[in-house]
């Protein structure tokens, strides 16, 4: 793809964005006086602000670019990552888990594990989470630098370092409050930048019906049923009938249950936003409010990819360029067809449809998505580092001012480590695959640990720790003994030998997650029954059966603000979407 230059107006839009982002950090710094202000936003955030930040912190580059790529590759089935792989878990965490996270007064998810279980369980989670956030942030930064270098000819080092410097400035100044405010700003920008793209693209292909008929032709050409790209559920009976290469059971259990709940219910990056809310009720409403834009986001992030693929496949424009090999020649698949570089689907759409001015807005939207993801990782890292590692093991009885200072230093350290991780990613081609893999290994068993801890008073610290370790090992072993079709043993799996070949990488990921979760749950159960539980007095406020129900005060709220009512609306709307795109 040829690099495109920007006009002065485009740079002006980007400059205005940077000024506002830094200005917010500067204004917010005056309200940061304590470590609670810095790490928890003083627990003063209104539910709607926390809700938009909740969804925006997750809406990083990998989502905007990655979902566009998946939309181009898999069609509307990509929406499962939202309608199955996010919404149910968000409803669950809102109704059943936020009362414990918020009510236990834990300042972080690892701290909840210490309160519920023991120190070693907290240490395992804190250590793995801290490493994951730094790498995730760095890989995002690398992906951003690479993309802007390819699209716009920007120097990769300069764009990575400039974005990192801006994120560093506003998160060091204003802490979590600044990050949350900017995430809400970034959310609005992402909508403003991508919505016109979707409208223009749909107009160009003749609306949803025009898009469907182009994709039907492409599906049949590739040997799938006509509706494979536009029907989310109908062709999930067999992996060979859909481009995702999965069947419904693996999707529902692997994505919809294990991976989804493992991320949305336990990842501190998103949970931190809900924990910053101004009350328990607001904390419960936060994921529900976030679920509303989340269920509509497929239209913004997946449709551009589908439109790009439809236009490319029907010969109306090479919106998705071929992937180039080391020799800069197009890579070919087993059938001799050029392999498309799906990651460029959404950026190509921006360059194709947006004139100067709007292009600046679209580029700013991409920048905003990268930066909100990075800031989310950095603020989660600095909290876990300061509270769960530094305060717990290195300097337990220092003053609050000291921890505030350490938090600011940790922010600088986190950004510097992320930059280092970005350069590591630059040196190793498959680092993103490795990161996704390790993430899945560590995340997949987590939900079992949390669910058993919150809903079974008999679960013990020894059970939880050994469950986590064996769940992670089970994921590594399952992955090491299986391989996706067409892959060679290595980072894709099969490094211990190949006992089973999955039809696709996603199918392998889902079943690896199921194996990890099941192992963790069984080991936790068995070891817990063999070890002594903590006295019930110590578990009040941490276990469901020993805690006054959060919903008991909901009767005082106006009916449409009650979390249960919001949850019903969200689940109902998601069900309708699934039916509409069956």
């Amino acid at each position: 793809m040829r690099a495109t230059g920007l006009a002065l107006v485009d740079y002006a839009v980007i400059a205005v964005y940077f000024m506002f982002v830094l200005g917010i950090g500067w204004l917010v710094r005056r309200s940061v006086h304590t470590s609670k202000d810095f790490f928890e936003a003083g627990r003063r955030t209104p539910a709607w602000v926390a809700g938009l930040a909740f969804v925006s912190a997750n809406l990083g580059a990998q989502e905007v670019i990655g979902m566009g790529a998946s939309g181009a590759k898999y069609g509307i089935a990509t929406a499962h990552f939202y309608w199955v792989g996010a919404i149910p878990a968000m409803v669950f965490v809102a109704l059943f888990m936020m009362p414990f996270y918020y009510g236990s007064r834990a300042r972080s998810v690892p701290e909840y594990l210490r309160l519920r279980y023991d120190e070693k369980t907290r240490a395992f989670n804190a250590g793995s989470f801290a490493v994951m956030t730094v790498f995730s942030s760095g890989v995002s930064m690398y992906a951003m630098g690479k993309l802007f270098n390819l699209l716009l000819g920007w120097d990769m080092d300069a764009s990575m370092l400039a974005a990192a410097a801006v994120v560093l400035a506003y998160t060091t100044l204003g802490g979590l409050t600044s990050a949350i405010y900017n995430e809400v700003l970034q959310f609005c920008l992402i909508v403003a930048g991508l919505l016109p793209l979707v409208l223009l693209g749909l107009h160009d292909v003749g609306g949803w019906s025009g898009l469907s008929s182009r994709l039907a032709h492409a599906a049949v050409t590739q040997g799938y049923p006509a509706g494979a790209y536009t029907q989310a559920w109908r062709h999930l009976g067999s992996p060979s009938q859909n481009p995702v290469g999965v069947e419904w059971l693996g999707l529902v259990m692997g994505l919809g249950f294990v991976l989804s709940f493992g991320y949305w219910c336990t990842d501190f990056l998103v949970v931190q936003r809900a924990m910053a809310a101004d009350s328990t009720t607001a904390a419960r409403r936060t994921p529900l409010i976030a679920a509303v834009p989340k269920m509509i986001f497929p239209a913004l992030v997946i449709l551009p990819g589908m439109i790009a693929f439809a236009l490319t496949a029907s010969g109306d424009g090479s919106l998705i360029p071929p992937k180039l090999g080391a020799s800069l020649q197009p890579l070919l698949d087993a059938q001799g067809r050029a392999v498309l570089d799906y990651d460029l689907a959404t950026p190509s759409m921006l360059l194709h449809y947006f004139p100067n001015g709007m292009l600046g807005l679209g580029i700013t939207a991409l920048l905003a998505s990268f930066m909100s993801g990075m800031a989310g990782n950095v603020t989660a890292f600095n909290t876990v580092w300061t509270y769960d590692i530094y305060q717990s093991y290195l300097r337990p009885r220092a003053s609050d001012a000291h921890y505030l200072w350490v938090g600011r230093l940790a922010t600088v350290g986190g950004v510097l480590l992320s930059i280092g991780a970005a350069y590591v990613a630059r040196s190793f081609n498959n680092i993103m695959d490795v990161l996704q893999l390790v993430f899945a290994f560590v995340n997949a068993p987590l939900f079992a640990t949390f669910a058993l801890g919150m809903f079974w008073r008999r679960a013990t610290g020894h059970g939880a720790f050994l469950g986590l370790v064996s769940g992670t090992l089970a994921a590594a072993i399952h992955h090491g003994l299986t391989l996706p079709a067409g892959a060679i043993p290595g980072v894709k799996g099969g490094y211990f030998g190949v006992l089973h070949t999955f039809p696709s990488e996603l199918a392998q990921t889902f079943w690896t997650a199921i194996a990890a979760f099941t192992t963790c749950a069984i080991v936790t159960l068995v070891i817990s029954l063999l070890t002594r539980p903590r006295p019930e007095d110590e578990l009040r406020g941490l276990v469901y059966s020993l805690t006054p129900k959060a919903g008991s005060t909901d009767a005082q709220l106006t009916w449409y603000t009650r979390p249960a009512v919001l949850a019903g609306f969200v689940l109902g709307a998601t069900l309708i979407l699934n039916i509409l795109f069956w």
Partner: protein
Amino acid sequence: MPLDVRVPISGLFGVVGLLLLTYGAFVEGLETSAGQLNGIWGALMVVFAAVLGYYGVRAERRSRLTARTPGE
């Protein structure tokens, strides 16, 4: 919260919207498709900024009033 988040968002959308509207109307020209797209989307962003800014400023004023008269 120290500052209502709607205020800076409305500021950003207002400035960017005006930039796009001005560029579309006076540089590209509204007779071109590029000019129309920039003009229309810029105008919509300015309207959004105005509405959001109104609610943000109103909320800030109420919050300052509440802070000054805590007993009432």
